[in-house]
């Protein structure tokens, strides 16, 4: 329980006169137009641009947070825009963005703002994307998923102790959030940041991939992302590219169809290949799609259906 005038752990919720208030509703601190590949979502309308927004504060406190300047800040300490849900939708339409992403900090922290914006976006035929750590109770999660089309969910560790130690969250709710997203028809891609010495144990990576295959299916893309020293983990080195490549091999061995390496540029590991005939389907250079051989959701070469949401 929060006492009068007390803030929640996320810094953006406060008890004012007995009312729990979201202090950042309508006050995003970051608003950008990004390619959808940056979320990262590789199987969701490739090449489209997304109006992306975040407010200050976060329900997690990851020691490796890349966006800690906004996620671990008090809302009043950093300048924010004044943009209500209606203004956000108008902005997306004006800038020809067919999608909105609630990202950079966790949208579950600025839940009410994300929910109202998502509802309004859907009324205006815009798609909604959540980029989240997936740490939320099932009931509010259902409401948000019902009006969202895709989610990139961070599966940060496959070990509860490490989850608590590094992020302040726990594993089980994240796994439940992944399963629920799949059940509710939200397009899901998973990001797993590999941090040297903390979660680069290949046995655990294999265990995680097996869990993904058994509970979400082999068509859920996994993005193994390279760690760079940030925030409170500056003492650790960047992830060796070889570690990421081995993790990718393990995921393929387990039977996952689409596995990518993130935060490493200019590698073939950022391309999509057909799991049936091995042909190059989508060639990417950074966040730019330079070749797309998917036609109406099928491989142009063998005609097999490719998992995802396509034009």
């Amino acid at each position, binding site marked *: 329980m929060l006492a009068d005038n007390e803030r929640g752990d996320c810094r953006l919720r406060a008890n004012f006169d007995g009312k729990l208030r979201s202090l950042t509703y309508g006050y995003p601190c970051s608003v950008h137009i990004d390619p959808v590949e940056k979320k990262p979502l590789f199987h969701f309308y490739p090449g489209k641009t997304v109006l992306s927004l975040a407010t200050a504060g976060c329900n997690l406190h990851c020691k490796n947070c890349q966006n800690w300047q906004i996620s671990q800040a008090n809302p009043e300490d950093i300048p*924010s825009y*004044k943009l209500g849900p209606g203004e956000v939708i108008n902005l997306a339409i004006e*800038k020809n963005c067919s999608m909105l992403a609630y990202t*950079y900090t966790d949208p579950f922290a600025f839940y009410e703002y994300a929910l109202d914006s998502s509802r309004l976006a859907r009324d205006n035929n815009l798609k909604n994307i959540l980029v989240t750590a997936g740490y939320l109770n099932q009931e509010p999660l259902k409401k948000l998923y019902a009006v969202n089309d895709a989610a990139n969910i961070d599966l940060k560790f496959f070990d509860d102790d490490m989850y608590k130690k590094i992020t302040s969250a726990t594993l089980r709710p994240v796994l439940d959030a992944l399963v629920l997203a799949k059940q509710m028809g939200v397009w899901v891609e998973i990001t797993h940041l590999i941090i040297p010495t903390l979660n680069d144990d290949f046995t655990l990576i294999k265990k995680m991939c097996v869990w993904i295959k058994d509970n979400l299916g082999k068509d859920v893309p996994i993005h193994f992302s390279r760690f760079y020293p940030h925030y409170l983990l500056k003492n650790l080195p960047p992830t060796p590219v070889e570690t990421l490549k081995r993790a990718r091999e393990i995921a393929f061995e387990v039977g996952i169809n689409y596995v990518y390496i993130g935060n490493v540029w200019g590698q073939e590991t950022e391309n999509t290949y057909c799991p049936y005939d091995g042909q190059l389907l989508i060639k990417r250079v950074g966040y730019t799609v330079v070749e797309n051989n998917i036609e109406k959701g099928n491989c142009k070469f063998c005609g097999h259906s490719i998992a995802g949401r396509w034009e």
Partner: protein
Amino acid sequence: MNVEDQRPKTEARKQKAESGKLIGRRRFLGMCGKLALGAIAVCVMPFEIGFSKDKKTGKTRFVMKIKPFRDSDLYKKHNLAG
């Protein structure tokens, strides 16, 4: 200090009006400069708005810093993950 400054203001104004000038060029440029500085300050500096006030004391308890929205911000290169 010149002689003009020592005369009563009304007389000085009268003379300026007769000469077709209401204010001197230097004063006019100074006013323009101040105006421009004021406009820049309003546009550039984030200003604060009250968000919530204590009913009993009337004091502001929470204040957001608001930055003006610019289209160019949307396309700025940024290092935020996600």
